[in-house]
């Protein structure tokens, strides 16, 4: 079992959901990203989704769009993100899921990326615009190197597509809570969690729910139903609002420990 599956398993043993925290690599800069990952892990993040910025993030709302723009202006590339993963690996074992869009991956080369990602200590991939139909070129080599491939299921996915996602999953399935982009408001998390919980039972695989989860209360709403909960835009906002990189690390540490308080199922 890989580090990601282990993290979900450990959380389950503690009778809580696993906390997955999204950070956009290179926002505000890559050195700070390493500090943010370490701080988030220390504060209770079980898995880090490390966003690889893309110029045209069509699944992201304004908050993560702005983070990607800041990061790209600072010169972040996929190759530099992998260097940062290497730095992080010297300091923490928290599982790192590379999260992003397909074009930078295609440009880097799928096989080369899998090799370099494995060597850097990354644990897997989640590619927003790579549905199962198009994913063989990345998923095949990834699985061969023991890296995870995390598929998405949306509220619009029909049973055939859900089965396809379950087939493609190697650790957990990412359930998108609503039709929309990241960071949207007014999500009915309670009913989304119930649907995701049903899915998790049916598929007998860990499901993490993301999109629109922002607060400790949101986490507490989700935690009883599924094995994982993803918080992204709220973390990115905390970084955006911070007055310095040091302050950003402090804010994220504080936010993650607060979110972690909502994970328990007891």
């Amino acid at each position, binding site marked *: 079992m890989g580090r990601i599956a282990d993290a979900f398993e450990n959380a389950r043993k503690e009778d809580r959901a696993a906390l997955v925290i999204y950070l956009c690599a290179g926002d505000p800069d890559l050195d700070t990203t390493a500090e943010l990952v370490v701080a988030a892990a220390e504060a209770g993040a079980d898995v880090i989704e490390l966003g690889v910025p*893309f*110029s*045209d*993030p*069509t*699944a992201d*709302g304004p908050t993560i*769009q702005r983070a990607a*723009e800041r990061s*790209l202006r600072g010169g972040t*590339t*996929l*190759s530099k993100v992998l260097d940062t993963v290497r730095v992080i690996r010297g300091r923490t074992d928290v599982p790192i899921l590379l999260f992003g869009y*397909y*074009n*930078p*991956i*295609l*440009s*880097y080369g799928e096989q080369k990326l899998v090799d370099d990602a494995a060597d850097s200590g990354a644990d897997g991939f989640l590619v*927003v*615009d*790579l*549905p199962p*139909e*198009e994913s063989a070129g990345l998923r095949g080599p990834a699985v061969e190197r023991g890296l995870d491939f995390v*598929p*998405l*299921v*949306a*509220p*619009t*996915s*029909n049973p055939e*597509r859900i089965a396809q*996602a379950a087939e493609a999953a190697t650790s957990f399935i990412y359930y*998108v809570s609503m*039709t*929309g*982009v990241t960071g*949207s408001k007014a999500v009915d998390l309670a009913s989304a969690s119930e649907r995701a919980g049903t899915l998790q039972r049916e598929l007998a695989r860990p499901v993490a729910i993301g999109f629109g989860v922002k607060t400790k209360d949101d986490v507490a709403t989700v935690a009883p139903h599924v094995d994982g909960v993803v918080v992204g835009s709220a973390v990115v906002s905390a970084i955006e609002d911070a007055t310095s990189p040091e302050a950003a690390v402090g804010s994220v540490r504080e936010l993650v420990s607060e979110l972690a308080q909502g994970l328990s199922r007891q």
Partner: protein
Amino acid sequence: MRYVLRLMQPPEPASGRYGPYGGRYVAETLMPALDELTQAYQESQRDAAFQAELDTLLHQYAGRETPTYFASRLSAEIGSRIWLKREDLCHTGAHKVNNTLGQILLAKRMGKTRIIAETGAGQHGVATATACALMGLPCEVFMGAEDIRRQAPNVRRMELLGAQVHSVTSGSSTLKDAMNEALRDWVTNVRTTHYCVGSVAGPHPYPVIVRDFQAVIGQEARAQMLEQAGRLPDAVVACVGGGSNAMGIFAGFIDDESVRLIGVEAAGDGIETGHHAAPLCAGSVGVLHGAKSYVLQSPDGQIVEAHSISAGLDYPGVGPEHAWLKDTGRATYGSVTDDAALDAFQQLCRTEGIIPALETSHAFAYLPTIAAELGPDADILVCLSGRGDKDLETVIEKLGERG
């Protein structure tokens, strides 16, 4: 469509591939909607009543068929016989309406209650707003802030037609960013909304649907050339941004091996400056807006901004079928600069009394290159994809800068 069967496997319903190009690189949320659209489109193709309704609209509402016209004074200056397929005479002033009438009819058939679209020059936005007004559906158009500035008359037109125009300020504030924003809206409202894509770009089935709705251009033009010129043209020329007018006219001639198909991209300030919109001529293979094709990108796979005087060509990607036509050699692609397009714009005004769109002017600017090769006995058919009233402000400003 026959060439599709001969040169390659027909686009797979599930993946929509043209060789290695095309496909569906979109968020999972949209995948079922693309399946639904594919199925609805295929059913509509077999439905005689649907086809009859579309034909009637194209004829009685949009003004088809459009003429093919022999441009004698332009021919004298260019040095080959030049024929113009007059899509500028379509209702709304460009070929875009061929596609929007088809797609909005399809959306109604699918029970969608809201329409969104992206637009660059505003021609597709106007054509979508027009079809929505005609069929009584609410319409929202995403348009880059930069394009809103340079295509102000089209913004007013869309508003008069009852559409809501959203100014997009992310990225380069042009067509690419408008399409990003339209995709974000679609992913949010996918259950009720049809996304009316304006070019042969985007995820499958859009490149197929838009090509098929635009194929009427080439089908008419082929029959008109046979009747009026007594022969097929030696070359068919069209400008290429996303590539819908080019695919539309190419579709009529793709099985005629003697007919050269030539697409003209926007070279902006010049290919060598890096400020251009010519992914087929100077880009590389990538994935943008749901399809694999040629794109303009950095060495790290970030999409870079396109540059063109023409808002409708100012796009860093191109339809996947063009990528395949390029690789197979069935079509060839050249490029012309902003300056050359401006010269051609004035030339057509002066010689034929026709004010072409700046997009279209790129096709005209390439004619001397083709004529030099084919000579005075060649017949060259140009897709005059749109009229240029919308561009007057830009043209006057640029000509003023030249002094």
